[in-house]
């Protein structure tokens, strides 16, 4: 096989980083946002989201797992028989993650 230069290591790196972020950080946030706040165990005003380093943290927390999703979902769809559409699906998945990153940055900068 000829060795071709691909962008795969770059996307794999984002996948891996997103996997680490999702594994360590996401469950506690689901407990906070999905249960503790709506059910009134804890009350908050959202004031902490205006702190600059919290914004940076949220950017990492939200954006990186999107690339983790893009990678896994793309391969899952391929494995479910959509391989002929692989290129288009890659554009949709990774494009979605890139749009998600831009929207996340926009929301956090707007605060």
């Amino acid at each position, binding site marked *: 096989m000829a060795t071709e230069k691909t962008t795969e290591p770059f996307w794999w790196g984002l996948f891996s980083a997103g996997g680490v972020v999702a594994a360590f950080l996401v469950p506690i946030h689901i407990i906070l946002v*999905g249960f503790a706040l709506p059910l009134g165990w*804890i*009350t908050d005003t*959202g004031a902490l989201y205006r702190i600059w380093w919290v914004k940076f943290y949220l950017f990492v927390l939200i954006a990186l797992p999107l690339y983790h999703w893009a990678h896994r979902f793309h391969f899952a769809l391929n494995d479910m028989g959509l391989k002929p559409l692989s290129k288009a699906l890659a554009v949709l998945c990774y494009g979605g993650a890139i749009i998600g990153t831009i929207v996340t940055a926009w929301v956090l900068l707007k605060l």
Partner: protein
Amino acid sequence: MSGTRPDPTQLYRPKMPATWWLKKKSYFLFMLRELSSVFIALFLLVYLCQIYQLTRGPEAYLSFTQKLSSPGWILFHLIALLFAVYHSVTWFQSSAVVLPVRLGEHLVPRQTVTALHIGAWVVVSLGILILFLALKG
């Protein structure tokens, strides 16, 4: 043949039925793990929507938070939490395989590496909880 690529139409391509992952428990668990990323991403989008409400004022933020107390949303977050925990555990298990830890000559057993990851995960989660409580205002 040397130097030329084989004619792609002559290659054998095994046909996989789209439902192959339903045929064995381990395949099914693999697919569940892959799909965990969907629920994690959906949750993060909900979280982003909640944070976005702050740009519309504190009332919008509060009413969005209250909206999440409906049974449908609680069910969604319960499913998302189960998938997220499944991702965490399987991620720590595979990390122990991908990144083996050596102590001198000895390889630390995989189970120990996974257990250390899970311990770190609990500590990080408690840290986030404490920080959230300290900063929430």
